[in-house]
C-alpha cells in the first residue's frame, strides 16, 4: 500500500534517475524484509502445524486405543455370552444326535446282518472249498515229490549198479580177458554150450 502511494506521486512529478534508483533500492529492501517476515511466519506456521499434527496423532492414538479396548471388551463379553449359550445348547444337541446315531447304527446293523447272512454262507463255502483244494494240492505235490524221490532213488541205484558193473567188467577184462588165448576162449564157449545143454536149453 505504501509503494502504491509512492508511485501515485511519481506520476505527478517525474523523478530523476538517481532518485529512482534510491526508491528502487528502498523498495527492494522493503520487499526483502517483507519476504523475510513471510518466511519466518511460514516457518512458525509449519512448526505449529507439526505441533498440531503431534497432538492430533496422540489424540487419534488415544481414540484408537479406546475404540480397540472397547471392541475387545465387547467381543469378549459377547464371546462369553455365546460360549455360555453354546454350553447350554450342546448337551441337548449332542443327546439328540447321539440318539439318532444309535438308532441309525441299530438299523444299519440289522440290515447288515440280513444282507450278510447269505454272504457269510457263500464265504464259508468258498473258504471250505479253498481249504479242500489246498489240501488236495498239497497232497498231490507231496505225492509228486515222493514219486520223484523214489524215481531218483531207482535211477541212482541203477546208475550205481551200472557203474559197478562197468568197473567189475573192466577189472575182470584186465584180469582175464586179455590173458586168455583163442583156444581158451573156445574152451569157455564149449563149456557154455555144455552148461546150456544141461539146463535143457536145446530140448525145446
Amino acid at each position, binding site marked *: 500500500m505504501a509503494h502504491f502511494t509512492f508511485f501515485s506521486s511519481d506520476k505527478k512529478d517525474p523523478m530523476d534517475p538517481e532518485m529512482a534508483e534510491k526508491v528502487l533500492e528502498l523498495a527492494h529492501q522493503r520487499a526483502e524484509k517483507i519476504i523475510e517476515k513471510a518466511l519466518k511466519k511460514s516457518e512458525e506456521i509449519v512448526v505449529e502445524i507439526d505441533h498440531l499434527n503431534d497432538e492430533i496423532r496422540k489424540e487419534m492414538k488415544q481414540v484408537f486405543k479406546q475404540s480397540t479396548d472397547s471392541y475387545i471388551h465387547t467381543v469378549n463379553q459377547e464371546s462369553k455370552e455365546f460360549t455360555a449359550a453354546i454350553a447350554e445348547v450342546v448337551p441337548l444337541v449332542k443327546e439328540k444326535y447321539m440318539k439318532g446315531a444309535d438308532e441309525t447304527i441299530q438299523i444299519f446293523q440289522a440290515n447288515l446282518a440280513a444282507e450278510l447272512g447269505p454272504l457269510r454262507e457263500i464265504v464259508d463255502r468258498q473258504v471250505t472249498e479253498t481249504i479242500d483244494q489246498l489240501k488236495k494240492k498239497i497232497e498231490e505235490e507231496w505225492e509228486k515229490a515222493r514219486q520223484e524221490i523214489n524215481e531218483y532213488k531207482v535211477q541212482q541205484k541203477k546208475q550205481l549198479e551200472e557203474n559197478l558193473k562197468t568197473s567189475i*567188467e573192466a577189472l*575182470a*577184462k584186465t584180469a*582175464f*580177458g586179455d590173458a*586168455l588165448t*583163442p583156444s*581158451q*576162449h*573156445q574152451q*569157455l*564157449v*564149449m*563149456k*557154455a*554150450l*555144455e*552148461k*546150456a*545143454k544141461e*539146463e535143457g*536149453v*536145446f530140448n*525145446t
Partner: protein
Amino acid sequence: MNSYPTLVQGIYTKRQCYILITNLEAIKEELYKSSLVLTQLMSDHLSLELSEEILNLLKVENTDITDRQSLVTVFESLISYLKNLPIVALTLTYSPTLKQLLQISEWFVTEVKAKILIEVRVDPSIIAGATIQYKGIYKN
C-alpha cells in the same frame, strides 16, 4: 529129404544158409524162364562141391534132371528145409575161425542130434565165454 543133412554139412552159419537159399531160389526161377540145363544153372550160382552134392541128391531121389517141374519141386523142398533149420545165436567176445565154427557145429550134431545153424555176434564187452539164445531162451 533124408539126404538133406548131408547136403548142408558144409553150412554152419545162418549167413551161409541165407546165401544158399538165395542161390537155390535163383536157380528155381531160371528153371521156369531159361532154356539152360540144370548143370549150367548150378555152375552159375553154386560151388562145384555143392553142385555135385545136389546132383547126388537128385540121383538118390531118382529125379529126372531134364524134368524142370520135378527139379522145381525138389528145389522148393530143399529151400523149405533150409528155411526151417533151427538157429542158435552165439554172442562171443571174438570173431571165431572157420575151424572153431566147425567144432561148434559138430558139437550140435553130436550132442543135440540136430543140424543147428549158428548166428555169430561179436561183443567185445563180454569178458569171456558166450551168451546163448535159442528159440527165445537166453543164457548168459
